[in-house]
C-alpha cells in the first residue's frame, strides 16, 4: 500500500510540474479518456470541451501549488482531498488568485499509471 501512496505522491508532484510548464498536451496524459473536470462549479466538462478548456486556461501561464489534506487509496481507486492555489491572470491581464479544496478521484489504469477520472477543484467547502 505504501508503494501505491508513493506512486500517487510522485504523480501529483509531476502533475504540478507539468501544469506549471503550461504544456496542455502533456497534461492530458494525467487524465483518463473519459475524465470529467469541473473548473466552473456546476459545469462538468469532458472530452474535447475539457481539453479545450485546459488549453485556454494554461495559455495564461497559471502557477499551481497544492497540499494534500487526505488520501484514501484502494487497490485501483484513490480519493484525494487537496488544498490548491492558482495564481493566474484574468481576461484583462490583471493578476488573479483562485483557490479551493479539490476532490479528486484517480484510478489505476492498465499501464499501471494513476490518472484523474474526476477533477473537482471546488468539491469541498471549508
Amino acid at each position, binding site marked *: 500500500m505504501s508503494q501505491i501512496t508513493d506512486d500517487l505522491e510522485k504523480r501529483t508532484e509531476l502533475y504540478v510540474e507539468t501544469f506549471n510548464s503550461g504544456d496542455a498536451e502533456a497534461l492530458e496524459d494525467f487524465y*483518463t*479518456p*473519459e*475524465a*470529467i473536470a*469541473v473548473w466552473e462549479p456546476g459545469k*462538468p466538462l*469532458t472530452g474535447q470541451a475539457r481539453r479545450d478548456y485546459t488549453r485556454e486556461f494554461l495559455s495564461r501561464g497559471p502557477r499551481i501549488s497544492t497540499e494534500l489534506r*487526505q488520501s*484514501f*487509496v*484502494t*487497490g*485501483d*481507486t484513490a*480519493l484525494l*482531498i487537496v488544498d490548491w492555489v492558482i495564481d493566474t491572470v484574468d481576461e484583462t491581464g490583471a493578476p488573479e488568485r483562485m483557490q479551493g479544496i479539490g*476532490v479528486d*478521484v484517480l*484510478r489505476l489504469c492498465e499501464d499501471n499509471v494513476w490518472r484523474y*477520472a*474526476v477533477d*473537482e477543484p471546488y*468539491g*469541498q467547502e471549508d
Partner: protein
Amino acid sequence: MAFDYTVDFDPENPDLTSDAEVANEIFLQVFNSGDGELFNRLYLDDSISNFSGEPLSGAARLAFFKEFLSSKPTLKAKITFSYVAGDVALMGVDYSIQGTAPDGSPTLLQGVCTDVLRRQKDGRWLMAIDRPVAAKGLVAE
C-alpha cells in the same frame, strides 16, 4: 425478516448502478434494513469506508457495519451532485443518521458525504470509497 426493496435490487448480486438516484435509494434501503453483512456487500473487499471515523476495509469494515447497524439507525440522504467518468463515479450527498445512544437517548449525526463508485468487470457498480464529513456529530436531543 426479509426487507422489501422499492428498487430493483438483488442482495445476492448487488449493483448500485451509475444512476445516482438509484444508487442512493439502494444504499439507504440496505443501510436501513439493519443488516450489516448485507450492507457490506455494497462494498468491495478493499473498499474504504470512513463511517466509523477512520478508514476501514475488509474484515474490520464488516465488523463495524454489523455493530453500527445492529441498533437500526435511520439514514436519510439526498444526492447533491454526481459525475460518471467511464468506470468511475463520484457522488455527493447530504445525509443525516438518527440513532440511539447506549443509554437509550436519541442521537443525530449529519453532514455531507463523498462517495466513489467503481464499475466491476461484470458491469456491476459498487462502493470503492465513502467519506462522510459530519457537520454536527452525535448530538443528543
